[in-house]
């Protein structure tokens, strides 16, 4: 069987730094190939080279056994090689339909055939079970919907080789199922598929063969059937990561750190009340779109909200994030790209932006900033090819680590973490969980919003489940099961707010 697309001894440097040291991968038609590895291992770079977005510094790209040099992504696309980017590649101020057909508009005579495009966009999205209106502007739709639009856009392109860079990072279980259905369909049609994910169970579920990368080199290649999840993880990280979630070392404190009563965020959350104890890790579960993000944004003053908030027993009024921060409460956004980091600026500037005051004594103490960056790099294992790199050029996972480091620099007593491990490799996940536990052990209180049930179950002392802007119920650590949470999230089982 000849490979449809193949990389031979591909190297790639950015400036002085080489990030790929000779990669060989072959994609066969009708097969799903997994590319896994740590954050910054070079997966996205490899995929961009395959699809013409980047040129290899040396080595060959072969299509149907013939060496090709794609001048650009258009040339690759014309050959049927399509990439779904890890970071959204959509024009914010255009609509869903305009984005799907961007660059390949359907025309009737000199004019756009809008009706046909709308119908086809609708059909594509329906195939993905995505109900976002085709006229909505990208800026106004949710992250999961954006991902589905990306996928629809790729499907519209009639790919022979479909390369997907972490498509499931922002999707829910249901949407992942839909996507996998489509992948199966394409596979049956003989499309070669390359797939990346940090969720190894997904790799086991849909992939046939796999390549494992570490530090810009291939460390293992073979059939997925030959690997257990733990074996994959160990090959990626170079150590055993089977015990992902640490055990609770210090008991939850008794004091109430945060009391929320009747918090309403118009249009998103309605009359929400809960308590957060000192040293507690509170999980906030729910389906995507249940309003968890908006609720917490309302809590920290990023959105208009009404309700009563008490911190450490005192009534407080929070109108902007800086008010919350002054009270020791910080929120870490789920959207690192457009809300979390300044992509064109360096790591140092991003790290200290949130609490620049602490580094300023008349003037900014750059030396102290550099020290903080050195500490953050060590503590969160941020891997960057150079210290002065623009944050937009970091790998996705390393951006996420930097974002966590940025919030933690403010040393909040109450920290709300929205999707903390989105796009993070399994080794680093373990480190982040340990870090969260260490925070709790030090008496700080944490709210973790996560769409991964396992994460809530593994991490939280107690979980609240949200649906349609309301708290549907509370699950204690002892009886936390995936089924219990899902039933609440889907509204299949009503339950009175428990101990809170």
């Amino acid at each position: 069987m000849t490979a449809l697309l193949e990389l031979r001894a591909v190297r790639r440097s950015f400036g002085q730094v080489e990030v790929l040291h000779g990669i060989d991968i072959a994609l066969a038609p009708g097969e799903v190939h997994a590319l896994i590895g740590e954050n910054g291992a070079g997966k996205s770079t490899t995929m961009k080279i395959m699809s013409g977005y980047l040129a290899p510094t040396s080595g060959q790209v072969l299509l149907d056994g013939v060496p090709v040099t794609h001048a650009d992504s258009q040339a690759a696309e014309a050959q049927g090689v399509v990439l779904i980017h890890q970071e959204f590649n959509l024009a914010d101020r255009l609509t869903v339909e305009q984005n799907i057909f961007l660059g390949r508009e359907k025309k009737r005579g000199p004019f756009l055939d809008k009706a046909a495009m709308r119908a086809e966009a609708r059909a594509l999205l329906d195939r993905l079970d995505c109900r976002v209106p085709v006229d909505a502007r990208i800026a106004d739709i949710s992250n999961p919907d954006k991902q589905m639009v990306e996928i629809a856009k790729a499907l519209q392109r009639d790919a022979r080789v479909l390369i997907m860079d972490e498509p499931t990072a922002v999707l829910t279980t249901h949407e992942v199922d839909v996507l996998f259905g489509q992948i199966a369909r394409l596979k049956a049609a003989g499309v070669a598929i390359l797939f990346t994910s940090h969720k190894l169970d997904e790799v086991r579920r849909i992939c046939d063969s796999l390549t494992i990368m570490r530090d810009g080199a291939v460390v293992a290649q073979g059939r997925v059937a030959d690997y257990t999840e733990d074996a994959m993880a160990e090959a990626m990280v170079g150590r055993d990561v089977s015990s992902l979630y640490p055990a609770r070392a210090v008991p939850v404190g008794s004091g109430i750190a945060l009391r929320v009563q009747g918090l309403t965020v118009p249009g998103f959350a309605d009359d929400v009340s809960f308590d957060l104890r000192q040293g507690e890790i509170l999980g906030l579960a729910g389906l995507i779109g249940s309003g968890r993000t908006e609720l917490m944004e309302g809590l920290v003053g990023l959105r208009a909200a009404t309700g009563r908030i008490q911190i450490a027993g005192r009534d407080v009024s929070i109108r902007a994030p800086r008010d919350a921060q002054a009270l020791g409460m910080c929120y870490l956004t789920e959207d690192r790209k457009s809300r979390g980091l300044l992509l064109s600026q360096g790591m140092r500037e991003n790290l200290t932006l949130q609490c620049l005051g602490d580094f300023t004594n008349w003037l900014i103490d750059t030396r102290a900033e550099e020290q903080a960056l050195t500490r953050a790099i060590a503590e969160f294992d941020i891997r960057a090819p150079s210290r002065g790199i623009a944050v937009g050029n970091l790998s996705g996972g390393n951006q996420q680590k930097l974002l966590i480091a940025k919030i933690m620099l403010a040393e909040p007593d109450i920290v709300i973490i929205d999707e903390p491990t989105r796009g993070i490799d399994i080794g680093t996940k373990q480190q982040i969980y340990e870090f969260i536990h260490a925070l709790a052990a030090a008496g700080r209180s944490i709210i973790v919003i996560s769409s991964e049930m396992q994460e809530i179950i593994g991490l939280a002392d107690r979980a609240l489940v949200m649906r349609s802007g309301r708290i549907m119920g509370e699950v204690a650590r002892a009886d936390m099961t995936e089924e219990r949470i899902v039933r609440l999230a889907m509204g299949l089982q009503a339950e009175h707010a428990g101990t809170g």
Partner: protein
Amino acid sequence: MSSAERLERGWRPDLRVLGPLLALAALVLIGALLNGNFLSAGNITNVLSRSAFIGIIAVGMTFVITSGGLDLSVGSMAAFIAGLMILVMNALLPVLGAGWPLAIAGMATAIVAGTLAGMINGFLITTMRIEAFIVTLGTMGIYRSLVTWLADGGTLSLDFGMRTLIRPIYFNGILGISFPIIVFALVAICGEVVMRRAAFGRHAAAVGSNDRVARYSSVDVNRVRLTTYVFLGILVGIATIMYVPRLGAASSSTGVLWELEAIAAVIIGGTMLKGGFGRVWGTVVGVLILSLIDNILNLTDGVSPYLNGAIQGVIIILAVILQREKRAEG
């Protein structure tokens, strides 16, 4: 509740759409109350005809701004093209005689010069990758200088016989609608159609919204950008064809500040200065608002003429208050 459902939450009148229209309606009302002749056919024809210059240019500017660009040179460019057109016509007069062939030669000059001027701006901005603000500030100075130099510091005037011949291009019309109004309307309609119904309009918006995404989506970003400038240059040429018959002369003070007026009209009309979204009909409304302000100031006494600029400024700001963006959330 899925986000899809959330988006369909009831229809509210969108101020960003209604805003400019409301402002225009308010101005018409004020004008009508101040002076009985305001709504007379004569006055309306005057106002619309003279809006045509800025209007035609502003339609092109809408595309440039939508695709994330800017052009400060249009006023000087118009002056230069007008001067060139007059020079060419005067030079050809002995050969072609004062007739329509000469007029057509003049028009061709204007269109060709506009196309070239647009190409130069576009080339420097796209291929040479220089900031549009700087390129067009530079060419603004260059064209202004050139027209002063061509006119030797004075005025370039069209031969008088020829002037009488082409006067109808501005002053006459079809069915009582003057040519500038007709041309402006045609340009606006074409512009609106291209913006909304042609691939080019979409591509311009995509380039202005995020040029990287556009590039990754097989849009030839440089070509789109270049085309917007060429398109604007051609429209400047067309505006000049309307302008020369009106005054029959060009000098260093021709077209001064047209660029600011055109940009202001575009923004008053709801196009985003940072690019990514453009609205041609809004631009037309913006142009009308600006022309009406001038007209209304001429209808009334009692205000020191020194303060005209202040009143204009206040009205421009008020017109835009109506359509400001929603407070950012989330």
